């Protein structure tokens, strides 16, 4: 049974990841039919994205970084992502500060952004990486490196072009501490899953060395912003995708995301009001599909199952013991026109919410 599932998992993940990453990119544009892209990616290799979507992204290219363009609402949400990550780190730090570091706030965390799109979050996080790697981190997010992946060539190009307009970010791109990979999540974890899985005994020496391109990428923080609600639950599995995300995570690390819940207030907010014609609406019509929204308990269930599956090795199967030390966090986010995004604890049911899961510290 275990071996059966192990074999089937990469397949499922391969199928879901490109769609996931690609559709997140199309968040704020009217979307092409997902059934065609799903069928095409299912039959083709992992990096294939349908021609429909590619042409669609080309149309998106010019407006991705336009502060008044269709992605405006995403840009406005971005500061909240930093705040939510900071609150997660305040609850539990992935890597305890190494002994040689005398800084109270060391920049020692390695980030992976899955489905980075045009780089709204990835670039903003890369900006907080100190130019001098021994310097203390300027923000509570403590970034040491950022690896951002997206399967869309066009979007990765947009992201790289935009990153070059900031000398600080450009310097990180050149040093390799910030990188955009035009690839899928599976390709990122492939070298590691082929060899022996997780390296026990964190923090590993890699956490202090800034070489995210090392063959076994292990990340302190994996981010998944506005991705889950774009998975078609009838054709692909959020569970398999989340499991793969959790595989890339170091013990004690956080998987952090944001998505939209499938409730009545959320329906009114996201489907009726947010997509209403100008001047009421804030996102283009057809941005979201109601049946793809996910509720917090669903995510909670998936990540619990995912944590156990991610602990699977060739010799043992993960079980409830792998959930020890797991932390779960969830908080609502509400967009108030004129005021912007606000974090509202308990408002998860209203629509947008942030969620986070922390892998237990001590792997068995």
């Amino acid at each position: 049974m275990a071996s059966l599932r192990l074999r089937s998992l990469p397949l499922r993940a391969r199928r879901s990841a490109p769609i996931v990453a690609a559709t997140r990119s199309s968040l704020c544009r009217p979307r092409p039919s997902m059934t065609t892209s799903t069928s095409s990616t299912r039959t083709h290799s992992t990096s294939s994205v349908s021609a429909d979507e590619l042409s669609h992204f080309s149309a998106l290219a010019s407006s991705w970084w336009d502060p008044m363009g269709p992605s405006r609402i995403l840009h406005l949400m971005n500061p909240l992502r930093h705040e939510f990550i900071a609150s997660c780190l305040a609850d539990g730090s992935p890597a305890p500060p190494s002994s040689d570091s005398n800084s109270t706030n060391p920049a020692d965390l390695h980030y992976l952004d899955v489905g980075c799109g045009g780089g709204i979050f990835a670039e903003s996080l890369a900006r907080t990486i100190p130019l001098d790697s021994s310097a203390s981190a300027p923000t509570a997010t403590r970034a040491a490196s950022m690896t951002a992946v997206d399967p869309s060539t066009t979007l990765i190009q947009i992201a790289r072009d935009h990153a070059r307009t900031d000398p600080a970010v450009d310097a990180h791109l050149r040093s390799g501490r910030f990188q955009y990979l035009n690839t899928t999540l599976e390709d990122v974890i492939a070298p590691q899953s082929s060899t022996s899985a997780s390296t026990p005994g964190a923090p590993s020496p890699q956490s202090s060395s800034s070489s995210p391109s090392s063959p076994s990428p292990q990340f302190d923080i994996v981010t998944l912003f506005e991705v889950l609600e774009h998975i078609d639950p009838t054709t692909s599995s959020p569970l398999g995708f989340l499991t793969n995300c959790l595989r890339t995570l170091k013990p004690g690390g956080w998987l952090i995301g944001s998505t939209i819940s499938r409730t009545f207030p959320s329906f009114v907010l996201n489907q009726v009001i947010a997509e209403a014609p100008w001047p009421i609406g804030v996102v283009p019509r057809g941005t979201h599909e109601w049946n793809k929204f996910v509720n917090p308990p669903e995510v909670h269930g998936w990540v619990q199952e995912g944590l156990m599956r991610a602990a699977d090795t060739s010799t043992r199967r993960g079980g409830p013991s792998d959930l020890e030390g797991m932390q779960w966090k969830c908080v609502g986010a509400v967009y108030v026109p004129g005021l912007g995004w606000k974090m509202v604890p308990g408002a998860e049911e209203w629509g947008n919410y942030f969620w986070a899961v922390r892998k237990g510290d001590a792997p068995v």
Partner: protein
Amino acid sequence: MRPFSRAALRPYICPSCRHGIGAGRRRLGTQLGSPDIYDVVCVGGGPAGLGLLAALRASPATSKLKVALVETQDLRKAQAWDLEPNQFSNRVSSLTPSSVSFLRSIGAWGHLDAGRVQDYQEMQVWDGETGSRISFDWSAETSPFEDLRTVATMTENANLVRALLKRIAVSGDENLSLFSNTTVASIENGSDLQPDGADLSAWPVLSVKPTGPAGTAQAPSRIAARLLVGADGINSPVRSFADISTHGWDYNRHGVVATLALADPDTTPFPAHLRTAYQRFLPTLGGPIALLPLPNNHATLVWSTTPEHAAYLKSLSPAAFLAMVNAAFRLSMTDLSYMMRMDGSPPTPLPTSSTEQQDTTTPHEAELAWRLQHTPVPSHIPPSATALQPGTVASFPLRFRHAAQYVSPRVALVGDAAHVIHPLAGQGLNLGLADVAALARTISYAVSHGMDVGDLLTLERYSSERYLPNAKIGGACDLLHKMYSVPGQGPVTWARSLGLDAIDRLPFVKSFLMKNAEA
């Protein structure tokens, strides 16, 4: 959204440099290396620009930013500024409590020479045409047993500038460049430094040059700015570069300023430290006259009037000038209009010092003394001005300007570059400091959230915080000016007097207005 490329096609070139720009461009072309890159470059070293720098240096989030300031004047002179204890500069500003608390929060207030700063707790404002009056103080808000709260604090601009410079100096010189005696020759967009560097094609790049042979700091010839802040006054070169238009008008009025010594008050104020500011609207002469307290029984005068009257006042001898000031707080409009037309030639040759008593009485003094005998004088007038500090009489034109927007990609405007208003409420510098506080907060937020401090998404936070409040206060001052420019009796005069009296009798309306003015 206005595309940045429009600004790119029309680089700002200061008119005096336009003739030499061709040669300059070729020179730049040959040495086109990468410019020095700064996070925040502020053009203009007045209270607003220095306030921004001090605020950035004071906040932990922004203290590591690489910042530069470009100022045409010599900042060393500003730092070495010093005057005798009873001499006061004629450029004095009234700081609201919120401005004072901002200056305290950035650690600049302690560097002020406290002996040159004067709080006042009461303000008397009345209409010279009808006599209707309003007095502002916090007595409605405070119990009789506590001290009256400060309405505003008078500070010489030079004292404030020196304090800000000291505050900035205390923060150390790491990541800080003050380019004094340096002028901005041109601002253009940068270029793509492919393959060795970043794409700076949307970054403003300043070409600067020393104003004289004695340039203090060795400024690099080219400075690239992640965020270029225009604190460069009403004719802002930064605003021209960003292609931001302004609207506004000239009031056809001048503000006449002077530093005066006052007679001892007839009755000692009840709390001994109580000080009062006085403002009387003189509709037939074109605007209000205000007397604002300075330490040791001195006061600064701001008299808004027509350019003709301003020229007349400036031509008077010190004794005649003082007589006109005292008359303006006491006599009727008819009397004042007459005195404004008197032969102003001084009967005495060159008065050596204004503090000396003059033996001969000027015609203005005689006229004032005679007319006062026939004029009932209210109780709320200021003590008479007894001496004029030599060399402090000056005038400046009054204007209204408001920039169409405060921000543009990688550009933000603060202070007079963004708005110039009528000085009748003494709000100009306060609005500038409020801009600076808001912009510093915005930059701090951006830095702590990974945002690019020059990005429009960052800057719109600043703009949305400041645009409406500034427009509101500027508009209110404009409205007051227009209402109080209507001479004689008539509907407008009655309405404004009714309004003033009503406000004075309704404590809650008055305290609402004062809280608005304070915040």
